[in-house]
Structure formats: structure tokens, C-alpha cells
């Protein structure tokens, strides 16, 4: 009897033990189910520290860089559309050069979709709304740092609106974050959008330093997120950048009087940001103005080699370079030789000229002129400023504006309001540094000369299309183009994906 019971008791004990283990496991259940993901930050863990502010701030910049780099958008919008370049084999690029912007090629469709730009708008707005929370949580995050950050986000948002208004004209204007509520909003007249952008920039401009992390930057804070100048040069928007953008908004609106004032601020104070005028060799060197980030890139977006942000797409090089600079045989776009000769029609131009003795072309802007394969090689920052083009990845910055550009805009604005002498002086700053000497033409031809200079100087920097629009608005002498302006043909069509998700938006009239 006894023998029979004993094992049974053991068994019960052991089963009990098993069950105990089971219960312990069960009680740990809910705790087992709380895991913070390693590849994202949830709402309750963000907006807590200085680092959160920095990540979010730079994230907004990065989103704009992505929008401009995607499919080389900045250059397709600016240089290709009815510009001097011609597509070689890509029919989608051909459609852009010929203004057939409703051709349903994937790239053209992607360029007509403004979502990526509105991601920047949302990101800036979220920052403006939320960054104040960090002030309470992290003592290291100072009031001044906070103010600089918010000013940058307001400036960046204003710049993004300006960029979009140039492309689509009337666009929805969103000024408060509504994350999670997908409210459909109608388009607003581009004048209102640009007015908003201007007032935002003016409100932000005094909170922005001339140079981040520099001793004399107009503010108390001398190191910015632990870094001193020149770290942030050409990476963040400073006070000079903001005025440069203001000048452009004004010029685009035809408010040239304002443009003169804003551009003049840049012309006077640019030295505080560390910016300088660029020599011709520095313009075309592999490690020159466009390489990496530097203070002369007044509004720039970096694609640095040493931070592994360089890329194949997102550069003019991707479109224009070919053999002998890189291994690709034929570039995606090229400029016909006669067009080049027509543009550089003045002697001694350091950028492109014919040697008067031999009649042969001399140029850093182009390679192989005269052969069937002329390559536009002004900008050629391959990897770490390498000359070995076998791996075509580029580190050139996207430079929206630099001193020469602002000087020419200043000249244009002055000419537009009739200050011809001052305008000529401004134009001559650029002409002199490019070897073509002083402007000797008439006052009547000044505006043409300024735009011709822009065409030469800013080739491949995403300006040609917008220059054409401003030029024709000023001159009104090309009936076809004037008609295009009148009918809204200077704007891009809106992608069907945008139209299908917002009933309040209609296609731009010209493209209906």
C-alpha cells in the first residue's frame, strides 16, 4: 500500500512544480509583450532631448533634398524644360525638353506629383508645433537654439512653398500640422502662397545666424549642436540664405523693387557667412565650389562623400556626363555644338572660347566639343573628387544660389526698375571674373545681356527655365511664350494620383 502511494505523491509534487513554472511564465506574459522597436521611434519617446530636435530639424532638410534629387528633379524642372539641352535616347527626357509634360512616363508623372515637397511642409510644421516640448524636457536645449531651429523650419517651409509655386502655380497652403487627419484642401492662388512665404521668411530672418558656429553670427550662440564653422556651411539656411530666397520670391512675383532691397542685403553682408565669389577654375574643379559643402553655396544641399550621402541620381552629372569623364558612352542629355557656340559668343570667355590663333575650342565647361559627343562637364564631382569615372557616384552639392547668381539677380532687378548704371556695375562683377570684360552694350540691351550671362554662368544649375519665364515676363517679346504664360502653360500638370486623392483639386487649366 505504502509503496503505491509514495510515487503518486512525488508525481503530484512534480506536476505541481510544472504548473508553478507555467504560472510564472504566464504572469510574465504582458511584460514579454512590451518591446520597443529598434528601427523606429514612437510618439512617446520623441521630442524629449536635444538630439531629437537635431534629428527632426535635419530630417526636414533631408526631405527637401530627397524631393529635389529624386529623378534629378531639380535639373529636369530647371535645365531641361524648354532649355538648351537635348535628350539623347530617353524619351521621357525628350518629353520634358519639348514641354510635353502630360506624357505618361513614370519619371514625368513623378515630377508632376508634389507629395515629396509636402512631406517637407509637414515635417517643418510638425517641428514648429512640437519642438517646444523639448525645452521642458532637456535643459541642454536652450531657448535661443530653439528659436534658431524654428526660424530655420519656417524659412525652409517658405522656400519649399516658393519652389512649388514656381512649378505648379496655385497650390494648397497648409500652415498647421494635421497628422493623421487627411483633410482635402483646395488650391490657393500662388500670390497668396508667395505672400505667406515672404512673411514667414521676414519673421524668421532675424533669428537666423549669419553663419552657424561662427564667432560673429549676429547671435549669442556660437557653437551650434556642438559644431563650429565651417561644419554647417552650405548645409543649413542662414540669414544670407533667407534674404537670397526673399529676393527670388520678389523677382518671381515681378516685385523688383523688393528684390533689389533683399539682394542688396546679400550683396552687402555675404562676407559674414563666409561666402565668396568663385573664380572660374573653382567653378569647374572636381573639388571646387560644388564639391562637398561650403559657405559659398548660399542655399545648398550637400551630398558629401565622407558622410556617405553621395549618390548616382540627384546630380546634373548623372544627366550630362559621359566618356571620357565616366565610362558611359553617351550622356542622357547634351547641348548641340551650335547652341554652345551661340551662347558663348564673346571672346576671351574663360568658360568657353575659341582660341583666336588656332580656332580650336578651349573650355572647362565642355569636353570633346566638335566631336559628335560634346559633354557638358562643368560640374563633375565624382566620389571624393576623383578623376576616375568608372564608378559614377557623385558628391556635388545641389546649389540653389551662390554669389554670382544673386549678383545677376540684383542686376536684373535693378535693370527692371530702371537703375541701368548700377545694374551694369553688378553685371560687370560677374563678367569681369569670367574674362569677358565690362558690358559695353546699350541700356536697351542690358536685360538681354544679364539673361545671356545667367544662361552662361548658371548652366546646369537648374535656372534656365525660370530665367526664361522671368525674361519673357519682363520683355514680353515672344508671343508664343507670352501665350504660354497667359494660359498657365508655364506650370506643370498635376499628377493623376494627386488629383484622384483630393477632390478639391483640379488639373491646371493648360493641361486639361
Amino acid at each position, binding site marked *: 500500500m505504502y509503496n503505491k502511494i509514495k510515487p503518486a505523491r512525488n508525481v503530484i509534487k512534480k506536476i505541481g512544480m*510544472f504548473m508553478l513554472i*507555467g504560472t510564472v*511564465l*504566464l504572469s510574465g*506574459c*504582458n511584460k*514579454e*509583450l*512590451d*518591446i520597443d*522597436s*529598434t*528601427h523606429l*521611434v*514612437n510618439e512617446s519617446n520623441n521630442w524629449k532631448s536635444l538630439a*531629437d530636435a537635431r534629428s527632426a530639424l*535635419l530630417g526636414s*532638410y*533631408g*526631405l527637401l*533634398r530627397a524631393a529635389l*534629387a529624386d*529623378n534629378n528633379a531639380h535639373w529636369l524642372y530647371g535645365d531641361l524644360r524648354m532649355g538648351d539641352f537635348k535628350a539623347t*535616347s530617353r*524619351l521621357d527626357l525628350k*518629353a520634358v525638353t519639348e514641354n510635353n509634360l502630360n*506624357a*505618361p512616363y513614370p519619371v514625368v508623372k513623378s515630377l508632376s*506629383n508634389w*507629395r515629396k515637397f*509636402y*512631406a517637407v*511642409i*509637414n*515635417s517643418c510644421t510638425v517641428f514648429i508645433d512640437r519642438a517646444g516640448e523639448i525645452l521642458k524636457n532637456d535643459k541642454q536645449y536652450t531657448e535661443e537654439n530653439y528659436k534658431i531651429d524654428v526660424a530655420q523650419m519656417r524659412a525652409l517651409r517658405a522656400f519649399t512653398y516658393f519652389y512649388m509655386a514656381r512649378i505648379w502655380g496655385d497650390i494648397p497652403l*497648409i500652415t498647421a500640422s494635421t*497628422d493623421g487627419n487627411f483633410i*482635402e484642401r483646395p488650391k490657393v492662388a500662388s500670390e497668396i502662397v508667395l505672400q505667406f512665404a515672404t512673411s514667414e521668411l521676414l519673421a524668421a530672418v532675424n533669428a537666423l545666424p549669419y553663419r552657424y558656429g561662427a564667432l560673429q553670427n549676429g547671435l549669442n550662440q556660437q557653437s551650434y549642436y556642438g559644431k563650429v564653422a565651417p561644419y554647417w556651411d552650405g548645409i*543649413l539656411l542662414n540669414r544670407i540664405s533667407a534674404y537670397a530666397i526673399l529676393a527670388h520670391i520678389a523677382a518671381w512675383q515681378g516685385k523688383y523693387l523688393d528684390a533689389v532691397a533683399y539682394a542688396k542685403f546679400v550683396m552687402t553682408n555675404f562676407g559674414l557667412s563666409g561666402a565668396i565669389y568663385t573664380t572660374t577654375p573653382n567653378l569647374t574643379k572636381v573639388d571646387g565650389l560644388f564639391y562637398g*559643402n561650403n559657405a559659398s553655396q548660399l542655399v545648398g544641399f550637400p551630398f558629401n*562623400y*565622407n*558622410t*556617405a*550621402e553621395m549618390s*548616382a*541620381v*540627384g546630380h546634373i552629372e548623372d544627366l550630362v556626363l559621359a566618356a571620357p569623364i565616366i*565610362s558611359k*558612352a*553617351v550622356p542622357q542629355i547634351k547641348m548641340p555644338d551650335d547652341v554652345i557656340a551661340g551662347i558663348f559668343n564673346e571672346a576671351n570667355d574663360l568658360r568657353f572660347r575659341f582660341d583666336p590663333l588656332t580656332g580650336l575650342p578651349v573650355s572647362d565647361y565642355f569636353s570633346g566639343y566638335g566631336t559628335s559627343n560634346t559633354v557638358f562637364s562643368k560640374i563633375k564631382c565624382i566620389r*571624393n573628387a576623383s578623376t576616375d569615372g*568608372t*564608378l559614377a*557616384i557623385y558628391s556635388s552639392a545641389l546649389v540653389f544660389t551662390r554669389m554670382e547668381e544673386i549678383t545677376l539677380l540684383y542686376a536684373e532687378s535693378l535693370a527692371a526698375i530702371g537703375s541701368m548704371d548700377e545694374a551694369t556695375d553688378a553685371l560687370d562683377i560677374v563678367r569681369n571674373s569670367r574674362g569677358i570684360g565690362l558690358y559695353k552694350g546699350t541700356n536697351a540691351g542690358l536685360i538681354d545681356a544679364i539673361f545671356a550671362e545667367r544662361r552662361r554662368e548658371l548652366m546646369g544649375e537648374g535656372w534656365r527655365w525660370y530665367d526664361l519665364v522671368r525674361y519673357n515676363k519682363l520683355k514680353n517679346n515672344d508671343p508664343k511664350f507670352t501665350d504660354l504664360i497667359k494660359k498657365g502653360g508655364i506650370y506643370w*500638370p498635376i499628377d*493623376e494620383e494627386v488629383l*484622384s486623392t*483630393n477632390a478639391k483639386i483640379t488639373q491646371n487649366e493648360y*493641361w486639361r
Partner: protein
Amino acid sequence: MNKKNQALDSDLNQLQPGCLFKNIPKKMGLFLVLSTMISCAVNLQSHAKSTANLTVACFQDTTKKAKQQVAIDSVILVSYVSKSNTDTVKLNQVSKYPFISLQQALKSNAKGLYVQEITGEPGSASQSMLLRGLSRPLLSKANVAESQPAVYINGIPLIGDNPFVYNVQEYDFSPIGPATNLLSAIDLDNIQSINVISNLAAVSIYGPRAANGAILITTKNAHQGNREISVNSYFGFAAKNKVTTTNGRDESLFRNIFYNKYATAEDFDKYPAYLADATNENYYGRSDWTDLYYKNAALHTINASITGGTSRSNFRFFAGNTSNAGNADDTRLNRYNAAFFINVLPLKWLTISTMVNATRLNRDRNRSLRDRFAEMQYVPDLISPIAPNKTIYGNYLSEYEEKTIDNNINNVLQGSFSANARYKNFDFITRISFDYNEGMRDLFYPSTLMDGNNYISNFYAYNQRLNIDNSIAYNFKVNKAQVFKALFGHTLSRDVNKYNYLQGYKGTSDYIRINSVDGDVNEGDYLQAQGFFTKKFTDKQKINISSLYGSFDYTLNNEFFATLVARTDGASNMQANNRWFFSPSVNTKWDITKYLKSAVLNNLSLNASYGRLGTLNITDVYGAGPQYVSDLGWSSNKSVGSYGGIGTLSRPYSSGWIGYDIPWAYVQALEVGTDAAFLNNRLQTRLSFYSKTNKRMLLGVPVNAESGYTREYKSGMDVNNKGIELAISAEILKAKAGELGWNADFNIAFNQNTLKALPNNLQEITIGNQKLTVGKPVDQILVLQSQGVYQTDVDVPVNPANFQIMTYKGLKLHGGDPKWKDQNGDYVIDENDKVAMGGYMPRIVGNFTSSFSYKGFNLDFNIYFALKRSIINQSAANQLDFINKTGNNNINSVNEITFWQKGINVADYPIYNPWSAVQSYRSDQDIFIENGSYAKLRSVSLGYDISKFRYFNKTFRKIYVYAAALNLYTLKSYTGGDPELVSYTGEDTGYGLPIPRTFTLGLKIDL
């Protein structure tokens, strides 16, 4: 190791064979060693007592049963109803063939299972299984992963590669890393049984992992008895394909048709240089590349096992090697298996089982350009394809063979330690089990392969699943008529997926094939890569699942059976307020045989089941709700995360907004069926009707672009699958000694999917090139109807209302453009003019197996068919759209060497203007949609059992010799290649390697 630039030769760079498992987590390794030691110790101990114990009769019985291993699923499968709902794969037939993956083995051998192989490359991860149709639209590779049934080995749920690697990939043709199908780790000769369960109520005991069905694999296990030794082997080859090659002249003639009709002078100027010169020997000469590309390739397997022991302790050891090859591009998979099982009964009431099942997979991958560029995330200039000439192609291959390193290795390991205690009517099981696998790829491409650039990448990943199961079962016999069983259990499952990936570009020379770093702490570039320009990626994901379940079985008079399962599952990747989900199910069966008095009918039972089961997310992003991620990528630079060298965070604009209150998605199913047996059980049939609905699934709904987001993830997509399945098994001629025996099996499954609801009560959504409409199938293919070509501009219709010329999405149509039918008569051809032309999933799949036996001979064959399915002939569209394809110079422009293979017959297609901006040869038009139905004579084998001879039958239990052939003949109407080789969404891109015809001779010996 702190020297810079370690110039190692290739041998040293190979993985050290000693470190088979580089990174098994410590606790797991410890557990393995310990459990094996304990088992061995107990084993030895009990061995001493074995003679005494042999007399204990009752345990003789249990150990015999232990042939079906003592593990958690044995208890579950005791449930009668669930057992009756499983389909058992006939392994003795399947294991004869050189199937390298589970998918291949199950294809054509299970009911209602659709298997898709998108390439014949052995061991490639591009294989999928779908049980009972399509539970969701396949918008991404992740959707394919979410639709896979769960696979269990001895009750251990296997963990696969997580599709999160695609997040850093520019192109998703195959995942980064070895991209090996982990289900090719299973050696069929080591398998006792494979059961496929598609009934939801039957599968619900397995929990949410099995919401798409379950495949239960039971390995051969240790069991008591005299020592048994088995040896299995086959040798054979994959036969090379015969194809018609083309050269520059053919291509030029083809292009001239279009040039002569539509080209401008400018277009003629851009005529590709490699075709322009007809004296170019490389392109216009011999096209004999096939000699180097298609080859007969040897295959083999050899394995042996030993089983034995006493009733109180027994063991099994299995080891094997298999090599499987494709017939193209030197592709191969080598597999090494080792498995070890121990069962011990140290006490009368306690059984301890240990298993370790280890596999190593080593894959030789294809040498295609597209896969190489996709891996490098870099597309070079593609203006001229590689020449069709054997010498030129041979040079390329020899560079590849001599200088390239491409090691793809996976280690797969399953193990469990379980203890089973029985006392009276209680049965307690506790088990710790894990599935661990790791994948490595070391890659080096020399500079000679691409414009003087070399490339290196190293990938290491592991997936790990640890399960802790506890269950208690109670059997209770109320009286003779009523039997009651109850089971309660808890499972805690912990998943970890992790990878590290490093790419290096532009190394200093081709002799340095390793990415080394500066190991000197004092140097400024400490741990910086030397020589290569590098990019690093890493990610890790943890998901835990906790499940509580109960199952109640009731049997009345052995004629009525019912099982009720109730469970609640909590997942760490669900939002905190929606963490748990309760799922009940009920399964009944009524045997009505005794109420029927029929001479013909031997058995008839009716069954019905209803249930629901939560479904799991394979990512943890939805659980976090609104979130911040690194999302700065653009075309060609998808994964960049920093700006100005500093890491960033922003909202997930490109991947989509995720809000709060996301509930569990679940699947709900109703099934009724009947099983019948006729003519002395010689004819057995099973018929079932089901309707299963996947509910509340998440869908990325496109949102207004002004929000900045691409989409918003919303719960609320419902997809219903309805179907009928019929299985007939007939013993047409009964096998008797010396007479002909004939067995035949026929399975057919009809399935129709319907989209029942979309989030936000939407009626239709267009996502990418797929349009989802409520009430329509989720896999519908929508296309424009082509009615020829507009010869001239004046042929294009003009809208009489406003005198506007007909447009394609606003773009005026011209002569040479396709005459697309304007379905809605608005003189604008757009998405609204598209009509549905079938779906990419077959509506009918099935198979027919027949086996004859005569004396010792066996002749088997198997036919597999998939009907009512459409294929998008993307390959034809690419060929006709040569202007855009080469002009774009993107990853889709890559022409492989197979470009020089006879493709379409141009006379079958209208001649459009390929330069037109409407992109006349777009694939979304009816001329490229074809009927994709096919039937394949998939396998034939002839064998003879030599052990019938008296000489052998004393020493051998079995000596079976056989010859087998696979993929012999395809019946199809599709004009392209193999109708199986299409993408998940029905596109035949032409990139898939052929599924080879194989011939093997084999031997199976049991001692």
C-alpha cells in the same frame, strides 16, 4: 588583426569550416549542449535497467506509439477531428524525386495547395505556397510572406527570413543575402510524414501563425527495436534545354520593321552601334553562347540513418548530403543534413525527448547581370548587350569564375527538449524548442566585370524562434458512449530577426577581396573601411507572442465527434490597447454509416466547422502607432538616413502613416464536407466546400498628397475565398501477389477570391498598377483593349462635342499609336477604359497521381495542372518596347545573354510606333494577356524491389531500385516560355531560369 589592408587570397577568405554556427546565441548553445548531455546521461543510466524494464508491458505499447514522436503536436493530433482534416502527402512517392524544397515536394501532391516557382534556380527563395487561394492582394514581397502557411517540424514552428531586408533595397527581385529558400533544408528521406491542414477550425489549435494553413512535418524518430539502418541514394542529371539562338542580324531585321515604318532621320542616327555594323563578327557572327549557358548538370543525394534502442531509451541518427542543380548558368544547391533524436523514459510516467536537426545549405547562384546590378544597387551603361558569341561570353564567364567570390551559406538548426509526464488521466507536456537559422553571403565582383569597378559585400543574418510550451491534457470517459478530453496550454514564442550588411565599392585592387578596417585605436580612422567606399546597414526586430488555449473534445457513441477550441493570443507587435485577440472554433463530424444500409457504400460521414483565428503582422511597425523613422531616400539612394552627416528622424512619409487603434486582423471560415468510401473502401472520396474571409486586414490607402504621406495604413480590408475541393482515391486494381495493381489519386480544387471591403468604406483603390474593386477578385488584371493601329493622324477619332482629338490621358493620339477602345466614350483613353481579363491566380488547381504495381515493379506518374489563370507576357512587351527599354538605361533595361534566344513571333502583334509618347507597347493592354492554364506531366518513376529475391530477404528489409524523371511535358497555350515561371503577380519577365527536366537512378536500402 590590426593590420591595414589584409591582402588575403581567396582561400583564406572562404568561411572557416570550423565555425559552422558562427553566432548561435549563447543560451541556445548552452541549452543544446546541456540537453544532449542530460539525455545521454539518462540514456546510459536507463540502458542498464533496460532488460528489467522490457518486461513492463504497458510501456512497450507507449513506445511503439512513440514512433509518432512525443511532442506537443502528437497530443494535438490525438484530436480525432483535426486528424480527419489533414491531408497526408504520400511520402514514399515524393521522396524518390530530386525535389530540393518543401514547396516542390508538395506541389502536385497536396490538395488545394498552389505552389509557384518563379525561377528554376535550385534553392532560390523565390518560391511560394498558397493554401486555399489568395488571402490578400500581392502588392509587395511582404504580402507574399504574409500569405504563407506555417511549417512545423515535429511541432516546432519554423521561422523564415523576414522581408524587412527589402527596406534598404532599391530593387526587390530577391532579398539581399544568400536568398536561399530555408524550406530546402528539409531532407525528405528523414521525414516520416507530411500533413497539410487547410481547415481553419482544425488548424486553430496551432494559433495565429497557422492562419494561412499549416504544414506539419514529422521526422522519422527514434524508436525501440532492433537496430535499423537505412541508406538512400540517387544519382542523375538535369538535362540541358534546347533553344533557338539569334544574333545581331535577327535583332536588326526585327527592329527594321519599326524603323522603316516610323523612324525619323534623328532616330536612325541613334540606331544602336552594335547593330549598325553588319560586319561586326561579335554580334553578327555565330550565336553559340548556349554551349556555355545551358548544361547537363549532375545531381545526387546520399544519406544514411541508424535507429535503435530499448523501450526505455532509444535513438536515431541521420546524416545526408544532397546536391541539386539547375540546367542553366551553373546553378546548384548543396545540402548537408544531420539529425539526432533521443527518447528516454527514465520513470514510468515521464518521457524525455530531445532532437537536434541541423542543415547547412550552400548555394551557387546565377550569374545574371540584373541580379548583379540589383545587388550592387548600381546600373552601369547598358547600351550594348553582351555578344552572343561563345568566345566573348566565355571570356566573361572565365573572369567571373576565376575572380568572383560568391559564397552563400545557410545554417539551419532545430532542436527541442520535451518532457511528458502521465498520471492517471492527466498528460502533461512541457517543451522548449527552437528554430535557428543564419544566412551568410560573402561577395566580391572583380573590376574586370564592370567598367573597372570592383564590389564587395558581406551579409550576415540570423532568425531565431524560441518556444516554451506547456500543456496539460485530461481524458475522461463518462460512460461507454461518451468520451471527453480536455487540453489546456500556454505557448510563449520569441522571435528575433537580425541582419548586418555591408557594401563596399571601388576597392584598390582585385587582389584585395576583403573589406578590412583600421584596427588601431590610436589612429584617426579607427574602424574605418580601408580601400573600399562602404555603406553599412543593420536592422533587428523582436516579436513575442503569448498564447493561452483550451481544446475540448467530445465523442458520442463513436459516431458523433466535436472539438471546441478557444484561445487568446497576445502579440508584442500589436498596439498596447489591442494586444490580445480571442478566437474560438468548433469542428464537428457525424459518422452516418450505420444508418445507411448499402452494399456499395462503406462509409459516409458529414462534417462541418466554423471558426476564426487572428492573423499576425510580420513587422513591428504597426504596433508602434504614429512614429518617426529615417526616411530621406530618393531614386537610387533609397537608404540614406543622414543629412549633413547626422542621423535624422522624420515621419514615415514614403512608407505611410500609421495611426492608433489598429485591431487584430483575423480569418473566419466556414466549411462543410463529406467523406465517403465505396466498394470495400476501394474508392474513397472527400468533398469539401469552404468560405473563408480574411477580415480587418491592413491596407495602405493612398491619401491626399498634400499631407506629405503616400498612404495611410488602415484596417478594414476583407477578402473572401470560396472554394470546392474534391479528392478521390481509388484502388482500381487491387494489388495481389503476382497480379497487376493500380492506384489512382485525383485532387481538384476550385477557388474564387473576392474583395469584400476596403478601409474607409471605399469602393475601389488603385495602388501602383493594381486596381482593387469591392466585389471583384483581388488579383484581377485590368487592361486596355487594342483594336489595331491608327495608320495616320487623321484616323484618330475627334470628339464631335468639342472637336478635341482623342487622347491618352491628355496626350493626343497620332498615327502609329494603338487603337485602344474607348469604353466609356469620353474620347480620353485612361484607367476607366480598362477591362478585366482574368486573374493572376489560377481558379483551378489539381493533380492526378497514378501508380501501377506488378510483382516487385512500380510505375508511378503524376500530372499537375493549374487552370483559368492569366499571364502578362511582359517579356514580349519588353522586346517590342525596345526603344524605351534601352533608352531608359535602368535595371529593367538589362539584356541578359538570353536576349539572344528566339522570342516572340512579331507577326502576332500589331506594329505600333515604339517612339510614341503614349508608350504604345505598354504591358497593360490585352495583346499581352494570355491564357496561362497548363498541365504538366511532372514526374514518372519506375522501380523494382530486389528484396523480393530470396537471396536478399533475410538480411534486407527492403532494396528498392528505381529510375525517375521530372518535368517531362507541359501542355499549354501560352506562347512564351514555361507558364510556371511568372512573378507572383502574373508577369512573365523572362528572367526566370528554366525548371529543368531531370533524370535520376536511385536506390533505397533498409537493413
